[in-house]
């Protein structure tokens, strides 16, 4: 390692620390007493060190308030959406990539052209549809629209296309049916791609804001993202800064842990997703 390398690392550590600063500050504030925060947010070293220290904000969150409930909602919606997207995407992706049937090419184009349609272009008609069905304020209302987004089909289709043909052909010669090939041979092979898609979907579900905002109007069906938005507008008056920050930390914990454990997959997923869409 050359000397310029160490200078580079040292030089980049400063912006990297600055980048981390806002997050650190949130965590630090969440461990400080509300009475102190009402007076000043820069007790020790600009408030970056949580002194005076308290864990009361977190215990208060679980004692009163709806944060644990919202957290649970988010978990249900995110897991449900992930399983749903995996189910419809692997099946459709496999059929479009590996099977021969009439109208396959036009059907593939029709399926993938939906990639062009942003969520914001359909959320109003979706809202009226779900209102007609009387579906708002329910878990399925939060989950279903994402299952129609073809990004998962696109990812699985690309993955299945890259698998060599002879694997299937050998099984076919043994007389194995198409559905069995899909279930017993292709799905196990597809685990890495499914993992990427699962993480992409989970991140999206956990962080989604616009659709829950219009669909879930009752606080019992808020996701944590939505709930946090509802308490942040009046943080100073009601809940106290420390508690709102603690909610923010709780809301971020699952995705940050997911990211730190499965970093490679998360990076792959976000690259594949192109954006947060």
């Amino acid at each position, binding site marked *: 390692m050359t000397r310029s390398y160490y200078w580079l690392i040292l030089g*980049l550590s400063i912006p*990297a620390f600055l*980048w*981390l600063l*806002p*997050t650190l*500050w*949130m965590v630090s*504030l969440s461990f400080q007493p509300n009475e102190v*925060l009402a007076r*000043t*947010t*820069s007790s020790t070293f600009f*408030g970056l060190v949580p002194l005076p220290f308290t864990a009361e904000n977190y215990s208060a969150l679980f004692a009163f308030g709806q944060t644990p409930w919202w957290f649970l909602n988010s978990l249900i919606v995110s897991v449900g959406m992930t399983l749903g997207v995996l*189910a419809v995407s692997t099946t*459709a992706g*496999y*059929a479009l990539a590996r*099977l*021969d*049937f009439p109208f396959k090419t036009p059907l593939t184009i029709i399926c993938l052209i*939906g990639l*062009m*349609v*942003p*969520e*914001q*272009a*359909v959320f*109003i*008609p*979706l809202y*009226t549809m779900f*209102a007609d069905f009387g579906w708002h304020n329910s878990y399925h209302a939060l989950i279903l*629209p994402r299952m129609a987004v*073809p990004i998962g089909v696109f990812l699985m289709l690309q993955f299945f296309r890259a698998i060599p043909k002879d694997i299937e052909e050998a099984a076919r010669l043994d*007389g194995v*049916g*198409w*559905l069995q090939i*899909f279930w017993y041979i292709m799905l196990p092979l597809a685990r890495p791609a499914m993992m990427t898609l699962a993480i992409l979907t989970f*991140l999206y579900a956990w*962080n989604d804001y*616009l659709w829950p*905002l219009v669909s879930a109007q009752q606080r019992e069906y808020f996701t944590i*993202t939505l709930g*946090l938005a509802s308490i*942040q*507008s009046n*943080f100073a008056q009601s809940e106290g*800064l420390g508690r709102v*920050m603690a909610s*923010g930390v709780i809301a*971020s914990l699952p995705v*940050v842990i997911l990211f730190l454990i499965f970093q490679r997959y*998360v990076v792959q997923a*976000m*690259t594949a997703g*192109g*954006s947060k869409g």
Partner: protein
Amino acid sequence: MQDLKASKKRMSQTQAAWLLLAPFLLTYGLFLVYPFFRGFWISLHDWNLLAVAFNPDAKEFIGLRNYERVMWGRNIEWGFASPFWQGLGVLGLAASAYLRRVDRLSRFNAIALGVASLLLVVLPGFHPGEEGRWYDRRFWPTVGNTLLFVALAVPGVTISALFLAAALNGETRAMGVLRTLFFLSQVLSVTVVTLIWQIMFSPRQGLIANITETFGGIPINWLTDEQFAMAAIVIATIWWSLGIAMILFLAGLQDISKDIYEAAALDNAKGVKAFWFVTLPNLQRTITLVVVLQIILHFQVFGQSHLMTQGGPNDTTQVLVRYIYQTGFRDSELGRASAMAVFLFVIMGTFSVIQFIIGREKE
């Protein structure tokens, strides 16, 4: 394999395909294709959310009137009304022609720059003439704010991500840790990001204000000052979405072969020189892709404006998606909101097509 054979049913390939496709086609048709066309349908109606909810017949078909109400006005004329933007457009046209001539831009990028400049010459030229007015005075300024947001956030993200990627393109542990630190904020939700930055920017409690005061400065009221509100949400956005751009650039850098750098090093091109003469030209397509992706992403901005500034002060951070949301769900005018959503789709769709073309070229 024996039990597989035993349990196999006689099913043709076509049947299997349709069976496997059915779940996706069902949700796709019901929750994307149908709503998409229904959105057009709604945009052709005078459709009040509450009235139609009580009585499904309370909507009235009015053709394209909603589009007119949103985008047009009385006595609209065209002329050189805003010299700055139109002048910039003329400059852009000249620049694209010149850069193409000296071969610093790919043909694709030159055309893109040219079309964008042409739009800059044409669009700001529309203005209400004497006794005229826009039917919706807020719509075009809102579009303008959205474009300004895109114009600030996209270069901000792209340039910083490009430099970071070039600097952190290595296999060492330290570089990996630094990459992780820069990427971390990317996985947070928009509400967490806005929560953090709302308080960061607060003139009374904010970290920025605290530091400014310590050094004897006067804290700025970022979020309620017309001059700084847009800058504030742009800063929060750059902080939030730098990671994905950096990762895309890193992937692009991996594709440049080491040989080119070695050859360049023989010609004494190292460090900054190598970056300018080797990295940048070889990365041009990735840069275009990242820019287009960022445009698509940031054009949909909603949460930052909705949660940090509520579109204010004085509408300076009002953006298109927030205006659609408000028109639809606060003012209950679903017809007009849908017309704006169609407008949004046309713009985003155009950029999606461009993204698709670039992706194709890359293969």
